[in-house]
């Protein structure tokens, strides 16, 4: 049973080696010549001004949440759509219930004003 996990272990080892190897290799190989330009936070970019903790309107947050919900809906619907004929009516009913619940959520959000920008 445990030998079936060997590929996973191999993958893990390769990825660790890869990550560590890249860091070590850049450290060994790169020439270090410090110039004022290179010491800037963003080389050739804008010089940063002010605090990074800007306050965003909560509206963005609402949009992000709605996006996640309907994004997940798509994630569940696409595999069903691919296998629709195989899953038959049972699958169709299950997906319909799922979508119906999400529609309830959408109606709720609409009535609550979550879709209005102002």
């Amino acid at each position, binding site marked *: 049973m445990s030998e079936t996990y060997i590929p996973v272990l191999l993958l893990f080892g390769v990825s660790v080696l890869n990550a560590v190897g890249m860091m070590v290799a850049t450290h060994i190989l790169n020439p270090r010549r410090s110039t004022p330009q290179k010491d800037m936070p963003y080389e050739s970019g804008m010089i940063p001004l002010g605090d990074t903790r800007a306050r965003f309107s909560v509206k963005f947050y609402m949009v992000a949440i709605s996006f996640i919900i309907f994004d997940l809906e798509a994630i569940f619907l696409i595999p069903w759509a691919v296998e629709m004929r195989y899953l038959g009516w*049972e699958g169709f009913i299950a997906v319909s219930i799922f979508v119906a*619940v999400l529609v309830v959520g959408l109606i709720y959000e609409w*009535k609550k004003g979550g879709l209005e920008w102002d």
Partner: protein
Amino acid sequence: MELDFARQSHLIWALLPEIVLSISAMAVLLAGVWKHEEGRPQDAHWLGGLALAGLLLAAVANGWLYGLSEVGRDGIIALDGFRLFANWLFLLGAALTIVVSFTYVERQRLQVGEFYALILLATVGMMFMGGTRDLILIFLGLETMSIAAYVLTAYNRRDRRSAEAGLKYFLLGAFSTGFLLYGIALAYGATGTTNVAEMAVSIEGGAGLSGLLVAAMGLLAIGFGFKVAAVPFHMWTPDVYEGAPSPSTAYMAAAVKAASFIAFVRVFLVAFEGVYTSWFPILWWLAALTMVVANLVALTQANVKRMLAYSSVAHGGYLLVAIAAANQMATAGLLFYLLVYTFMTVGAFGILMVVSAQSEERLQLEDYSGLGWRQPYLGILFTIFLLSLAGFPGTGGFMGKIYLLQGAAEAHLWTLAVILVLTTVVSYFYYLRVSWYMWMRPAEGGAGEPGEDSAIFAPLPMRVALVATAGIILFLGIFPGNILDFAFVSAQDLFPPASGLIGGGP
């Protein structure tokens, strides 16, 4: 009708209460947002009534399930008395919470529709936790319940303490869920199944005790320990219970705890029945520590809400004794105790809401001084709840403890039984101190002060709920027979028919 889960349509019949309740929750959500007008408080009674109707329909469906039977005892959805009894507990807890919450949510201007919808959704999650034999579904039910409970905790967004409690509860809850999920994964690794009935078969039939299984049981015990607030995993409880809006606290203390216990019992008593001797010490220590620590810390609390939070932890300790005993008597005692506990906890928090003028003030012990003479009915009711929580003879709490002790005695857990009795004696002090303040102290600037009466306002639904719960507590204390028999029969399905008893103590 006999249900066979090989046919998908039969799952719908077996899940009828859950389906009915989910639909009602969505209906309450939509109704709340439909009738809402900007700037006007919503009508709690109308939406609460709708939620209560949903609970009633689910209860009817639950009663209807008694007429059905299942093929075998390993279906993904259990159709046994244990599940149906647990469903009564959850539905009762939710209904009582809604009835006592009306004035609170209106005065605090909470969003009514979502509040009741979340209570119903949490109840659906609980019913899944209690009603399934599959660890994955137990986990899903637990998440449904917990996420709703996190929101209910942080519900009063105008109150800093509520937000803080919500965040604390969320972080620790998510952390503990990780333990539970890891435990489920290891249990699957050890036995090759996530079904508790098949797990028991696999353990008895050769899988036996392995290091993997021990780790799985330990992690599951930690995960459930967090949810039932067993010491040393109780740290979140006082802060969360104190900060949450009072109706949410009542609901968490009663129903959320009951649901966690029901799932705890089903997993440990069914799946790990064959290796009782190896998980018994964990439960023994959890129970002993919880009883001792919670009762001792409760002694020092000056805030009544916080005292009730520690008391709820202590009651969890008494219930853990039943799991450690792991026999039918103890399981029946656990069900009976959870029923009584639901009534007395919601009752006590109901009084708290009345005294604090449906908000979060006047929660200190001094605020109760002289209250009994100013408000005799309130004082008498609160005294009944406190006596029952303490376990005074003649109340349901006393009978519940007797049955837990009987279960412990059948398993020869003498030390735990002695600890239970001694800590109960300790608990008399902090429960009766509140009564003492109510009846024996002169009013001094608290809720008992003349002129403060106007702030104490118990509307009709609240009064009906309080009187009914107090009446039921006394009834269960004097005539416990029928309900206990019912609990005993309900617990029967968890145990193999041949022996009826498992485990025999250390």
